[in-house]
């Protein structure tokens, strides 16, 4: 199995806080191959960003602590790696794009300087060479007149352009894995589409694998090869995009799909949200953590934690009834209609 680019196996990370143990990441497993795109979907606080940050070693430890499991990059464990070693990977082989482009650029440096920084850190480039390269990177991400724009400060950039600059920065060292943490959330809809398109186009060109973290199924629908649905720090469903979209197994996934607004021009229908609130990670519900919000919950769901299990081939879910075709077909149809 060492041929996977990235292999996350039962990764579990808890925060030990004064209020108790926060089970932020609980037994997450997935693999990522070269040039592939994985969509990680879930509500706020479902642990989708924290999983990525744990992998990158960007979680403060303590209060965080990896309880068990591992994340292997090219066969090397990222979790047990020394800080000096993982620093050489960050921004070089695994790069990250953050959610809010308005605050992710340092206000006191010129944009070009910041795009050039990874090159100076990892490739040992001189300031001048790195700046020259920054111009090319900004051109690559579609910033007009990059020769002049490298000399601008972040406040002179619009939101969409800043996110483009962030992407340029992430791509500077031609990483194997690009982790995009809700890259379009802070942008308005038209810019969202542009950024998503840009990422797809760049992926084609550079061949890097992308982990796309989002709470918007729509964003990953036409981008991802595989989708991981997370809830309360656990993986609830994992499969190829087609599998997850066309035959979803978990009631939570049904809820997510159901809450996507439909373009129904004739009939006005109210949005159907998932009832209730995401649970507190300090005090998870007993049994299946989704049971208080699950319309199909039964006695077993209150007492037993459902383990993630494969249902067919590569497609699996963490629901007691995911293996029961009658239940899945009946209930999901009810929701989808």
């Amino acid at each position, binding site marked *: 199995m060492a041929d996977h680019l990235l292999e996350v196996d039962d990764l579990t990370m808890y925060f030990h806080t004064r209020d108790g143990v926060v089970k932020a990441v609980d037994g997450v497993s997935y693999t990522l191959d070269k040039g592939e795109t994985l969509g990680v979907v879930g509500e706020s606080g479902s642990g989708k960003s924290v999983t990525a940050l744990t992998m990158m070693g*960007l979680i403060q430890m303590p209060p965080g602590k990896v309880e068990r499991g591992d994340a292997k990059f090219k066969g090397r464990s990222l979790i047990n790696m020394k800080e000096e070693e993982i*620093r*050489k990977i960050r921004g070089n082989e695994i790069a990250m794009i953050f*959610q809010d482009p308005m605050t992710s*650029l*340092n206000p006191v*440096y010129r944009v070009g300087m910041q795009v050039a*920084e*990874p090159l100076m850190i990892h490739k040992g480039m001189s300031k001048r060479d790195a700046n020259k390269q920054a111009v090319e990177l900004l051109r690559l991400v579609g910033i007009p007149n990059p020769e002049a724009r490298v000399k601008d400060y972040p406040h002179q950039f619009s939101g969409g352009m800043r996110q483009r600059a962030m992407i340029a920065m992430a791509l500077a060292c031609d990483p194997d894995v690009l982790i995009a943490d809700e890259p379009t959330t802070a942008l308005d809809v038209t*810019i969202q589409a542009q950024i998503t398109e840009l990422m797809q186009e760049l992926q084609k060109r550079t061949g890097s694998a992308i982990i796309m973290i989002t709470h918007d199924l729509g964003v990953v629908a036409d981008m991802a090869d595989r989708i991981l649905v997370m809830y309360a720090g656990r993986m609830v469903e994992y499969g190829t995009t087609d599998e997850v979209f066309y035959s979803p197994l978990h009631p939570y996934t049904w809820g997510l799909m159901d809450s996507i607004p439909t373009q129904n021009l004739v009939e006005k229908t109210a949005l159907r949200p998932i009832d209730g609130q995401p649970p507190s990670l300090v005090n998870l519900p007993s049994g299946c953590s989704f049971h208080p919000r699950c319309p199909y919950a039964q006695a077993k769901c209150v007492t037993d934690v459902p383990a993630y299990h494969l249902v067919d081939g590569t497609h699996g879910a963490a629901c007691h009834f995911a293996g029961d075709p009658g239940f899945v077909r009946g209930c999901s149809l009810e929701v989808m209609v």
Partner: protein
Amino acid sequence: MTMAEHHKHDRHDEQSLVEQHAVRDSRAGLPAGPPIIEELAHMHNDGVVARDETVGRTLWGDAWRRLRRNKLALIALIWLVVMVTAAITADLWVSKLFGDPATINSATAMSNRLLDPSLAHPLGTDTMGRDMLGRLIYGARASLTVGLSAVVISVAIGLLLGALSGFYSGITDSLIMRMTDIFLAFPYILFCILILAMLPTSARGIGPVILSIGLLGWPSFARLFRGSVLSVKENDYVDAGRAIGASDSRLMFRHIMPNAIAPVIVYATMSIGGAILTEAALSFLGLGIQPPEISWGRMITDGQRLMDTNPGLVFWPGLMIILTVVSFTLLGDGLRDALDVKMKD
């Protein structure tokens, strides 16, 4: 201006504005060549505002622009520049114009003693027949040297400890902060007096004054910078910096420091005034700068016996102290507004 005129005036302005717009529009409408059109198209595409005078604006440039708008801070700055220039160049012209302000010329001391202001001596002379203005200018040397050097020492120690404390939380932070608390609990001036009083008279002078003020002044800087680092550290761009593989020192000095330094600059500027005040007080008590070196505090000591008959002996050095300290405070205040990015217009 009457109401009607006022209106007319307004309308005129409006009209000229409209005209300007029209002119600009027609210019934009002209076939301006493909590159510009392409650029404009891109701008619309991405919602970018037109690049106008913002080209080449730096953060420091912006701060300077805002500072210039603050009249009081500007006056303070001008006063300080004049004083610094006079103090630096004093050796070149003061002796020639007003005679040597430091040494006592026994031949003329009695005849020139306590002269009233005149053309030769604009502020009169002191008890030893030395020119007051000349002495004030040399006094500025001592004050500025002490003020700047002491604050540089305090800031250096404060930045180092504050950075360590704010960046590495936990035990490092606790240790440094407790040490800061202990130092802050010392009565500042009393401690300076104690240190200087323990020195033999021959060892007293400008050096010990700078060291005692500087070495006792750092705790406030450490605290201030720690707080500033703590808040800047939370910013996304610091995480982003970590995510591109920046080392701790790179994060601290390149990503955090430039964003956290502004309050320290402001407080340092204001502290220069405080250090000058402390120097004056120490010299007044005879513990600071020793004759023949000139200090405003010492001048007040020498003059106070004759305050009834010659108030100028105390008034002028006193005024210099006040003006200088107030100037540093006002400049610091102006810098606070100028460096505050949130107050951006």
